[in-house]
């Protein structure tokens, strides 16, 4: 291979295309041959050829990049395989899984952190998304511009550059967010009371979750002992383990545009007649929202919930950009995927990393299945 990295990849790409064309023809001919053996008509043989010819990139890719890797990682997950080690891998049986589930503090932390994001962050995100969707659903001029403005953060969302801007804004001392909080407190003292109340509740909850994590509740006791925050207190954002997860929640809420679009579609699907009839009967807008819109939106809420939970497991970029260089607080915010990355690629423990991958895979499948089971209980599908 040539030394020039650009030429190198161009040649590989050309070879790949050649490989894909060859395998497409190969798979197509094979399928046609089988069809002929089974006595298909000439026309059916032709369609069989074309079908496998066009679908072959995905089929071949699935084998090479999904199925075979999954198989290997399942096998490695029972061994102590390391890329760097010269010794052959030892069969460990279920040891890796036992360690992950019962002893591994980092993994435990990542589960608790995801739980926090699900219990505290997701309702906030869903609430804001629903609120914006209801506002946009009023059908007024300029709707498109607002819609764009609310969706743009989803596009920019997890770009490193934008996350660095958040790092600047979330600085405890000189960051703009805390400066605005200080300025508002000065101008309007009751706001300070409110913000300190929020700080207090947030810190108690976060300390409780950190306690769940370590099994010791010293921090929670300390927060409770300190009592109501002093007058000059501001959120500590990326500087304190009590606030790291809240900073991620802030990013989640900022990127709620995708959920908002789903809600908007849901609101559009609600028959107008329902609202008109209720209005005739004298229901207020507030009542109509809770008695008509909200129950009919449950499938959309449910969908957003599943997607939101799965993406909370997969958060990587915010943790990397905001906390990577701050080891002492990293464990308070680590996500499952970040932990997988850290564990697999710091010591190249492929066996252990594979086991983590499989645990994540199984957790995501369980979440999906449970949610789909549960939805019958509380989701309203009437009218559709």
């Amino acid at each position: 291979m040539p030394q020039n990295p650009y030429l190198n990849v161009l040649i590989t790409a050309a070879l790949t295309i050649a490989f894909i064309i060859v395998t497409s023809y190969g798979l197509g001919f094979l399928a046609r041959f089988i069809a002929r053996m089974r006595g298909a008509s000439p026309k059916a043989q032709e369609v069989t050829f074309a079908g496998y010819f066009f679908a072959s990139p995905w089929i071949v890719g699935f084998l090479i990049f999904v199925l075979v890797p999954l198989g290997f990682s399942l096998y490695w997950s029972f061994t102590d395989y390391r890329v760097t080690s010269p010794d052959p891998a030892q069969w460990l049986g279920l040891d890796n899984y036992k360690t992950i589930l019962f002893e591994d503090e980092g993994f435990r932390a990542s589960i608790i952190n995801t739980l926090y994001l699900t219990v505290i962050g997701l309702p906030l995100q869903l609430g804001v998304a629903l609120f914006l969707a209801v506002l946009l659903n009023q059908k007024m001029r300029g709707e498109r511009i607002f819609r764009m403005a609310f969706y743009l953060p989803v596009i920019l969302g997890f770009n490193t550059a934008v996350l660095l801007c958040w790092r600047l804004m979330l600085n405890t001392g000189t960051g703009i967010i805390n400066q605005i909080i200080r300025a508002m407190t000065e101008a309007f003292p009751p706001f300070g009371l409110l913000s300190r109340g929020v700080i207090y509740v947030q810190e108690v909850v976060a300390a409780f979750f950190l306690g769940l994590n370590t099994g010791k509740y010293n921090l929670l006791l300390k927060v409770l002992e300190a009592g109501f925050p002093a007058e000059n207190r501001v959120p500590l954002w990326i500087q304190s383990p009590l606030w790291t997860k809240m900073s991620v929640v802030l990013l989640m809420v900022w990127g709620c545009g995708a959920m908002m679009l789903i809600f908007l579609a849901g609101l559009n699907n609600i028959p107008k007649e329902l609202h008109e009839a209720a209005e005739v009967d004298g229901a207020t807008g507030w009542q109509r929202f809770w008695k008509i819109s909200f129950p009919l939106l449950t499938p959309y809420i449910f969908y957003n919930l599943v997607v939101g939970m799965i993406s909370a497991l997969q958060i990587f970029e915010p943790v990397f950009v905001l906390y990577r260089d701050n080891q002492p607080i990293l464990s308070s915010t680590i996500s499952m995927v970040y932990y997988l990355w850290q564990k697999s690629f710091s010591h190249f423990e492929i066996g252990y990393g594979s086991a983590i991958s499989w645990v994540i895979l199984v957790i995501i499948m369980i979440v999906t299945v449970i949610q789909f089971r549960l939805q019958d209980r509380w989701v309203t599908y009437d009218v559709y």
Partner: protein
Amino acid sequence: MKKYLPIIKSILLYALLTGATVLMSFPLFWMISSSLKTIEETNSPGIVWVPQNPTFEAYFAIFQNQDFLRSYFNSVFYVTLALVGTLISIAAVSYAFSRLEWPGRNVVFFLMLSTMMIPPQALIVPQYVFFNKLDWIGTFNPLIIPGYFAGGAAMIFLLRQAMAQIPKELDESAFVDGANHIQIWWEIILPLVKAPMATVATFLFVGLWNSLLTPLMYLQTIDLYTLPVYVSTLYNINQTVQPWPTIMTAAVLTTVPLIVVFFFAQRFILESVVVSGLKG
């Protein structure tokens, strides 16, 4: 009083929406504003909304920075190469799933949909070993080549839905006229799904441009870094004072392509998110 109620209501509505827009766009405003500040202003204990004397120093400096320019080129290069291949292969596979009735299609299609449940990160470990065996670590290959095999089940689904809506008679009559499947696919079907293709291309572009995890794993020297990896190195905890104007200048230049693409593609995206999201 009753007469003014609708007016008050719509004023309130616009006030809320404008407020939300200001909050949502604030990081973007802050990024631009900070890129025009001096280091002292970015670390000032008082609020500096807009710099007193906007300075383009950071912009001039960054265009002299070889590492930044190279990472910009790397990003453009790798995204272009990956995007074209992924888009064409996705279009081919969608054609097979929507326009052709071949035995086994439903099984393969179901298999494809079920891969959406597999988080891509669950595959990074074995894929790393695989690419290591191929001696692809330290090259762009692992970021580009997998896409050539129609990577992205959700995108295939989106495009398949669009293709399935085209009347069947269209390709049948072309077939009678002696066209083969490649011609029908390329010359008849693809021109009819330009808007969904633009949507898919936009999503792919955004995903590739923002991608951090895979470049971080595979590009191990600074001369191969893509923008997200390079920009993340600008913030360094060992520096006593962070060069915020420089970091934010890099951030602005990184975000510009995303905003431009979003601006042109927004009418496709805002509609299809809902379609693919709900049915996916």
